[in-house]
């Protein structure tokens, strides 16, 4: 039977978690990584990564797979599709229970659970998911060739994907909640130059309407209350991510947005527990910043284990 005691358990196997695992395992720390989904996190959802230094262009899935192989080659154990059902992080020995896998203990834990796509929270969004509503233009764009579609959001992803989709659909209506975009200026310019794209600003999405599949998106102007029915057989939603930290509420300090609060060594409010990547409080969320976080959290955990001066009691039976 495999020993269930580890030096460090990393919860989350995205860019931050896998990087932490590489550093930890290479430093001969016995390392377990658990992820409720497929290892790779949000990287897997990125079709092409063109700004990761040293790699001209690769899919997020390729980068994730390489990171995973690196971590495993150094000896890290990685469990995907593994749901943490209980955790006790307070004492010197941290304990987590993983569905179908058992109970694991470690002296240090790194929280690297990343983010989950923000949803509009409308009941009709769930009804038409996969029947018109999509979160991946590259995956599903060709289902809507020659048709009218909507894109919801105003950041870089929303506008870049709109430009890409405009090449194959009849029209794209970008629906955004503010009177200005959060996307970078050059991305906005690119979208404005595309004749098949029109803009519907200061809108709240009220409802998705259809029968077996999506037919229209109903929006309401935020100031005037005017209702607009946008004919659309497809609606692509790109409204950002929220930190996947609900399960840590009451365990470590979170800010008002649910982000884990850390210091510059990525220590949380609980000794021996560190946080890295999109789950923690920070401004910029990129693969590169997640990788940096994973590195810092791993080095901090190694230092905590090696030089903290804490005399640990024996592990629980």
């Amino acid at each position, binding site marked *: 039977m495999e020993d269930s005691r580890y030096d460090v358990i990393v919860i989350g196997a995205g860019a931050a978690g896998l990087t932490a695992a590489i550093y930890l395992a290479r430093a001969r720390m016995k390392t377990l990584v658990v992820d409720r989904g497929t290892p*790779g996190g949000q990287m897997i959802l990125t079709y092409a990564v063109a700004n990761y230094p040293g790699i001209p262009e690769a899919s997020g899935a390729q980068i994730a797979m390489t990171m995973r192989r690196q971590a495993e080659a150094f000896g890290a154990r990685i469990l995907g599709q593994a749901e943490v059902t209980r955790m006790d992080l307070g004492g010197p020995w941290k304990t987590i229970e993983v569905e179908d896998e058992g109970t694991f203990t470690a002296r240090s834990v790194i929280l690297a659970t990343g983010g989950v796509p923000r949803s509009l929270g409308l009941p009709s969004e769930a009804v038409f998911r*996969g029947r018109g509503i999509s979160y991946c233009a590259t995956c599903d764009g060709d289902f809507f060739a020659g048709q009218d579609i909507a894109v919801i959001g105003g950041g870089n992803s929303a506008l870049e994907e709109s430009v890409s989709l405009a090449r194959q659909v009849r029209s794209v209506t970008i629906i955004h909640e503010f009177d200005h975009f959060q996307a970078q200026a050059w991305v906005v310019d690119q979208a404005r130059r595309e004749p098949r794209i029109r803009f519907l600003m200061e809108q709240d999405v009220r409802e998705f309407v259809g029968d077996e599949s999506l037919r229209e998106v109903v929006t309401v102007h935020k100031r005037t209350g005017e209702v607009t029915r946008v004919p659309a057989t497809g609606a692509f939603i790109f409204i950002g991510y929220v930190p996947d930290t609900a399960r840590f509420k009451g365990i470590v300090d979170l800010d008002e947005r649910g982000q884990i609060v850390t210091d510059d060594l990525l220590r949380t409010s609980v000794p021996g527990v560190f946080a890295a990547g999109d789950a923690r409080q920070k401004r910029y969320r990129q693969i590169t910043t997640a990788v940096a976080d994973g590195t810092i959290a791993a080095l901090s955990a190694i230092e905590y284990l090696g030089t903290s001066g804490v005399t640990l009691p024996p592990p629980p039976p």
Partner: protein
Amino acid sequence: MLQTNLKHVETVQDYRDLTQQGKTVIVCGRMGPMCIPVYGVMESLESKYPDIRFRDMEFDSPVAMQTIRALPEVRNFHGLPFTVYFRDGKVVAATSSIQTKAQVKEILDSRMADGTEAQAG
């Protein structure tokens, strides 16, 4: 060719053999961001549901055009992958787009387990 650890359905005869009797789940997709997590879910469940065959199928292959993509149950699907659950020749459930492990297990336990009625999904 899909790069997964699942067995692939590559011919119409394979498809017929798999779906006409017993329990089979087929994930029909590409190596894309919405599909890869679903293959991972199925790989993780294979050992836990030994009576169910978990397979994948290349979405752009001729066999997909003649089988999964021709099913009436997927007529209104607009999101990859198409995941279809078969029991003794019947489609008992079908989903479009990414699914979590919990969502897949819910279908397996409610539609595919012995003692549950095989009803169209």
